[in-house]
């Protein structure tokens, strides 16, 4: 378990730096942003308690905020994501329940389950992020387009990263 924790701490910083230095600069058509750092939050263990989860979300969010000068915006969205996450997990429990120490990664738990789990969470995260950033509901449709395009873009990149870099180990 200690080795797992160390692995998670390192990947926390890798996700943070990858987001801040690479993916913050890759915006498709000025519309689709990719926030791959939530891939870290999504692949935390299923049993993780809700309050530590929210604190991890706050920490990672504030780190991203510091790099992208958004002052609490990513933190707010990530905390909300980590609050809703256990509810979605228990809502889509497969027959027979989850295996012990299950890690919700697409190459372990299956892409279909991962999509039903990750897509709503990414959507909620991006919804909060963009509407709070816009400070209101003027330009509603263009903001919603941004949210939808970014959700698809982030989801695809998160899945690709899981398959490419994380191997098939049960981490």
């Amino acid at each position: 378990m200690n080795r797992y924790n160390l692995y998670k701490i390192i990947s926390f910083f890798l996700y943070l730096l990858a987001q801040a230095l690479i993916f913050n600069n890759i915006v498709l058509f000025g519309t689709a942003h990719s926030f791959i750092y939530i891939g870290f939050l999504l692949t935390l263990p299923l049993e993780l308690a809700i309050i530590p989860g929210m604190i991890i979300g706050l920490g990672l969010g504030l780190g991203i905020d510091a790099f992208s000068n958004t002052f609490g915006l990513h933190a707010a969205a990530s905390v909300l994501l980590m609050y809703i996450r256990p509810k979605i997990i228990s809502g889509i429990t497969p027959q027979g329940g989850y295996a012990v120490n299950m890690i919700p990664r697409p190459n372990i738990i299956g892409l279909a389950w991962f999509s039903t789990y990750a897509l709503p969470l990414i959507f909620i995260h991006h919804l909060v992020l963009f509407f709070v950033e816009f400070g209101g509901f003027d330009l509603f449709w263009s903001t919603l387009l941004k949210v939808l395009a970014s959700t698809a873009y982030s989801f695809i990149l998160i899945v690709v990263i899981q398959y490419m870099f994380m191997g098939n180990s049960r981490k």
Partner: protein
Amino acid sequence: MKSLFLFFYKFRAFISLILLESFCAFLIVQNSQYHRALFFNSSNTAIGSVLLLSNNISQYFRLIDINESLASENAALKNDMNDFRELPDSIKYDSTRNFNYISARVINNSVDMRNNMITIDVGENDGIKKNMAVIGGGGIIGKTRYVSANYTLVTSILHTASMVPAVIKGKVNICTVKWDGTNPYMVDLLYVPRHYSIIVGDSVITSGYSGIFPENLLIGKIYSIDLSDDAPFFNIKVKLANDFYKIAYVEVAESVELPEIDSLQSAVE
């Protein structure tokens, strides 16, 4: 008492959600309303040095663009110099400089958000202070906001809180440039009364009124004009002279007169 504790225990997740979200909301409001950063941002030394390192690498891939923009800026400056040479000798020039320029490199830049900030690699040690004009390439870039020892965070023109006093060259003396938050190539020109005759292509330049921006700097050219029947002002879109996706080097303009103007104004108040 016991039931109170039970209540808190039962809703502990929700209560911590409220607490953490209020903390985030506090950070967001603190920044947007009171203009001071409680928490660290990219002018922080540790974060700034990581960004600088990453910029050192990524800069190589943009050298062609950077060279092109520097070359065209050089050409524009040479043209300006010619204008000065051709003036008759009998006009005496005031030789005092109103602005000192400090060159800086952009190490972090966002364009596609609604409130965009730019990080540059100069700070207090290089003489940067809050509220200095940042200009570059074809025109204005923004205004310095948070200054640390070695890095500065700049509020870009592409920020919903940015307002720049402007002039339509030779026509309108007072108007304001503001970004509506959508297209990073266009800004709105506000408060141009309907009795002026303006045309597409007119130059919009800075006025010296704020004391922050040097006078006569190009902001952009009028792209479209729209006037509804009952509106007192034109609806004008201005195409920015700068492509914010490509800015790499900027200059910070330090006003020599601004401290004097400020102290004079505060003495009156």
